[in-house]
């Protein structure tokens, strides 16, 4: 009997190709952003179908949620809407050739894979019993999650530092009318609780702070958009400190773990759970502050480009 999900999977795969093409082909920036968000949604669904709900969760929170909000914010601060124009043909040629090379390399890897992947499958299967996770995709990702988080935080911190140095057009949200308050009253506390829940779900393994941070940042962004909280009013320095703590703390933990257990990003035996919960909680708050700060732009009052 055929798998009843085959129709769904084919539709999803086809849909992803179409959306990817539409996102690339749209000349208008706003349309491109919406298509990009739709691509994030479909990518998340595809992780679901690959039996990796953890990755689907991350893709939903980061790819479809917070990135879209950041892109919309960026679009609003551009002085002129980007002009519609076709790219110069030499650039288009180079991009085309590069893409073809990458596609060729991926195809070659796929074609040459069978023998190699057999061995890999077995290695993962053996490890699966030890790690206590039942899904191979999740297990592989979990083992590298702390490295992943470290790099993500480094990238975010660098982005924030560059933005603070260059300055940016301050955020000036439109007034949203009296119904935004009840909206915020439901969404803001819910986002805090859901962020805590995601943190708790991810706390059995290191590195799940990012999804929680994205949801927490979303709650903060609603507060800022409703003009209920203005981080520029007085505590710019405090926010910069909170943003910095994430990267600094994580690096310290990595080095400390290296000294104690002679393996980077490994926590001492027995204390793992406590360590993970504390570190992840700190990371969540710090990354959320960084994401929200990226959304707001300049952190000092009256700072302009």
């Amino acid at each position, binding site marked *: 009997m055929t798998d009843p999900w085959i129709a769904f999977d084919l539709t999803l795969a086809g849909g992803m190709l179409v959306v990817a093409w539409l996102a690339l082909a749209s000349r208008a920036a706003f349309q491109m952003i919406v298509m990009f968000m739709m691509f994030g949604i479909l990518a998340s669904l595809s992780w679901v179908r690959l039996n990796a709900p953890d990755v689907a969760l991350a893709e939903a929170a980061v790819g479809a949620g917070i990135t879209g909000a950041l892109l919309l914010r960026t679009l609003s601060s551009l002085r002129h809407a980007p002009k519609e124009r076709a790219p110069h043909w030499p650039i288009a040629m180079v991009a085309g050739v590069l893409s073809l090379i990458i596609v060729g390399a991926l195809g070659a890897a796929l074609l040459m894979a069978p023998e190699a992947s057999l061995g890999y499958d077995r290695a993962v299967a053996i490890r699966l019993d030890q790690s206590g996770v039942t899904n191979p995709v999740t297990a592989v990702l979990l083992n590298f999650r702390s490295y992943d988080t470290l790099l993500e935080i480094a990238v975010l911190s660098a982005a924030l530092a560059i933005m603070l140095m260059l300055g940016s057009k301050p955020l000036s949200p439109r007034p949203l009318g009296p119904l935004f308050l009840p*909206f915020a009253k439901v*969404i803001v506390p*819910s986002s805090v609780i859901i962020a805590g829940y995601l943190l708790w779900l991810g706390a059995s393994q290191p590195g799940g702070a990012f999804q929680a941070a994205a949801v927490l940042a979303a709650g903060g962004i609603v507060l800022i958009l409703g003009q209920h909280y203005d981080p520029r009013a007085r505590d710019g320095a405090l926010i910069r400190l909170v943003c910095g703590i994430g990267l600094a703390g994580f690096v310290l933990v990595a080095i400390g773990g290296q000294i104690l257990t002679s393996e980077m990003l490994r926590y001492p035996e027995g204390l793992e759970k406590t360590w993970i919960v504390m570190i992840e909680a700190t990371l969540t708050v710090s990354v959320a502050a960084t994401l929200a700060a990226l959304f707001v732009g300049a952190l000092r009052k009256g700072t302009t480009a």
Partner: protein
Amino acid sequence: MSVQDIMGVGIMVLGTVFFLAGTVGILRFPDAFSRLHAVTKADNLGLALIALGTSILAADGFTAAKLFLIWILIAVSGAIGGHLIARHALRDKS
């Protein structure tokens, strides 16, 4: 197949009909405001029915509570979000 299963799946099928109505609505209706009617009303009920059917099939109180929370979040962002988009579109026009 138990009575419970048939009921759950039946309610979910009914839910998808409303999703179809929402999509037909946003394609057929003449302006953004009318399309918002389709999005806020039809999809809201569609999701409510799907969530209801899912909780009947799952037959677990806490799962049902989580599904109810999901529906509340979507309903709030649907109803108020529909208003906010309409408000935005109204300022676009003037």
